[in-house]
């Protein structure tokens, strides 16, 4: 098992190096003179020169890159031009909001997509099967921001069931004492039922939006891999030995069918993290996505760069975690390693 982890780490490391190189190159690709850009529009010639040597822009590119890596290693993502705050602190305080939303979205989509895929595979050609196919095709065609707005219109404006799409908590409540940064967990720890309910209400629509959006690939994959497993010899043997359909499907087939689904999760996370940005904009969610969007509009590059880097590092780590999880589920992978 340890060898598997080390081997996967060795695969993830070049990705991380590539990510750092790309984000570095993106900074250097900024239009115009980065020094003049970081100095702001009202800067004098001397101020720009001073900033240039301060940023190390007068040095050769490899030296600049080393400096950049050293800054990153110290957790220094630069200073935001518009707020004057260090980017790293801002991202750290906003990250839990995004993480809570994304994870809940994933839970929603898993809890709908996996049963749907299994039902579709056990009854090919039935209504459930057709529903699954329609859902899968519609899911990939839906613009996620449009889906979010439709849900807001139905559940907030028409039915009045959901609160206004304005952030993590209604202004009447104060946020629970910070432990994990996840409002649901923090409120539960503080034993504050009212705040828990209030933040849950705010979470439902954005999490549902993300869930519906990422449902398609999971449902499709579950269905396809269940179909393949159900057609295999060991399932036939299990059936022939008189096991109940439930045991055959859940204990025998499902566990084997989950392997390709776990692999698809990597792609699902790529979708989710990207869609997160759009959903945060629709629901005025104070996460790192809306932070990056605000910075983008103000042409403030440091936060965008910090955001892209954080997302990429998270994505690489998630893929690493999925690979290791795969090894835990499937002993064959461990032996190969």
């Amino acid at each position, binding site marked *: 098992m340890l060898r598997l982890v080390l081997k996967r780490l060795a695969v993830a490391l*070049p*990705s*991380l190096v*590539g*990510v750092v*190189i*790309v*984000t570095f190159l*993106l*900074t250097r*690709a*900024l*239009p115009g003179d980065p020094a003049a850009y970081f100095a702001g529009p009202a800067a004098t010639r001397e101020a720009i020169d001073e900033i240039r040597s301060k940023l190390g822009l007068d040095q050769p590119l490899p030296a600049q890159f080393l400096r950049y890596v050293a800054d990153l290693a110290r957790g220094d993502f630069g200073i935001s031009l518009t707020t004057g705050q260090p980017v790293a602190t801002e991202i750290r305080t906003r990250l839990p909001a995004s993480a809570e939303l994304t994870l809940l979205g994933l839970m929603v989509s898993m809890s709908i997509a996996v049963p749907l895929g299994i039902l579709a595979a056990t009854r090919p050609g039935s209504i459930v099967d057709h529903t699954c196919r329609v859902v899968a*095709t*519609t899911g*990939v*065609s*839906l*613009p*996620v*921001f*449009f889906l979010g*707005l*439709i849900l*807001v*219109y139905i559940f*907030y*404006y028409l039915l009045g069931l959901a609160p*206004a*799409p304005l952030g993590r908590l209604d202004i009447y409540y104060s946020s629970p004492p910070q432990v994990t940064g996840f409002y649901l967990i923090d409120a539960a720890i503080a034993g504050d039922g009212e705040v828990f309910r209030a933040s849950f209400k705010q979470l439902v629509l954005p999490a549902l939006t993300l869930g519906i959006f990422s449902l398609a690939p999971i449902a*499709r994959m579950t269905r*396809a891999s269940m179909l393949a497993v159900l057609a295999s010899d060991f399932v036939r043997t299990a059936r022939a030995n008189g096991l109940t359909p439930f045991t055959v499907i859940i204990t025998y087939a499902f566990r084997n069918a989950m392997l390709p689904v776990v692999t698809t999760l990597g792609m699902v*996370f*790529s*979708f*989710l*993290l*990207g*869609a997160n*940005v*759009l959903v945060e*904009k*629709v629901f005025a969610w104070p996460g790192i996505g809306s932070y*990056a*969007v605000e910075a*983008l*509009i103000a*042409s403030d*590059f440091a936060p*965008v*760069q910090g*955001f*892209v880097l954080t*997302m*990429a590092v998270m*994505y*690489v780590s998630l893929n690493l975690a999925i690979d290791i999880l795969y090894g835990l589920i499937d002993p064959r992978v461990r032996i190969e390693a």
Partner: protein
Amino acid sequence: MSEVATGAGDAAPASGLTATLRHARYIIGENPVTGFAFSLFTLIVIMAALGPLVAPYDPLASNTSVALKPPSAAHWFGTDQLGRDVLSRVIVATRLDFTIAVCSVALVFLMGGLAGVAAGFFGGWTDRIVSRVADTIMAFPLFVLAMGIVAALGNTVTNIVIATAIVNFPLYARVARAEANVRREAGFVQAARLSGNGEYRILLGHILPNIMPIMIVQMSLTMGYAILNAAGLSFIGLGVRPPTPEWGIMVAEGSAFMVSGEWWIAFFPGAALMVAVFCFNLLGDGLRDIVDPQRRT
């Protein structure tokens, strides 16, 4: 037919055309869903081509006396906060969205397709470099990388096209690489080599035409993603500037009115976007079923 094909020079293109038409009819007849998607695609192309000519109103003309009117006989899709006709704006926006998608798909076909074919055919260092570049791009959540690229290169429509092309690069490079790799020692390649063709000539004249059907399916499948990506970027305020009609930015403009009940401003451009993506996905699936029946899901 016989009157047309009097000269030998005319006969060849005419029979080529009928063959193409017969093949197209076969594709459409094979699967009614593909036929539906194809007619939808034709509609989108007509809208993109004619755009301003078929739009009932000027998409930029504001008229505050009819602001925020719900759909009616005069304004089928209603009017926005400035009294602009939503239907006209949705129609005129087709051209911009379609152009962005087509350009980015064409660009990524040139970059990713050629790089992938070369990687699969030559192997060695070409392969290592192309695969490494593709892996690095795949290490980012794609939409996030697109945001970063547009932020770095500058906030313009051209850069949206470039960013969409770059994030799709790995898909094209991988498909092209795998397909070229299978064919590198095929009989027709060895025959071409024996008759004295250079490696680049074999690559461009023999391998590339052979993998074109698969690449075209790939283009059709990623076209929907390209439109979604571009509309997402303009929804968060990148690329397209406000008065310009474009689906993503129209949804963004209408989003503030969704909470007060004026649903039509965001709904119709969003629905147009959805229908377009749906159409490209169905078309791609249909084409894939015909070109490569084994991957049918």
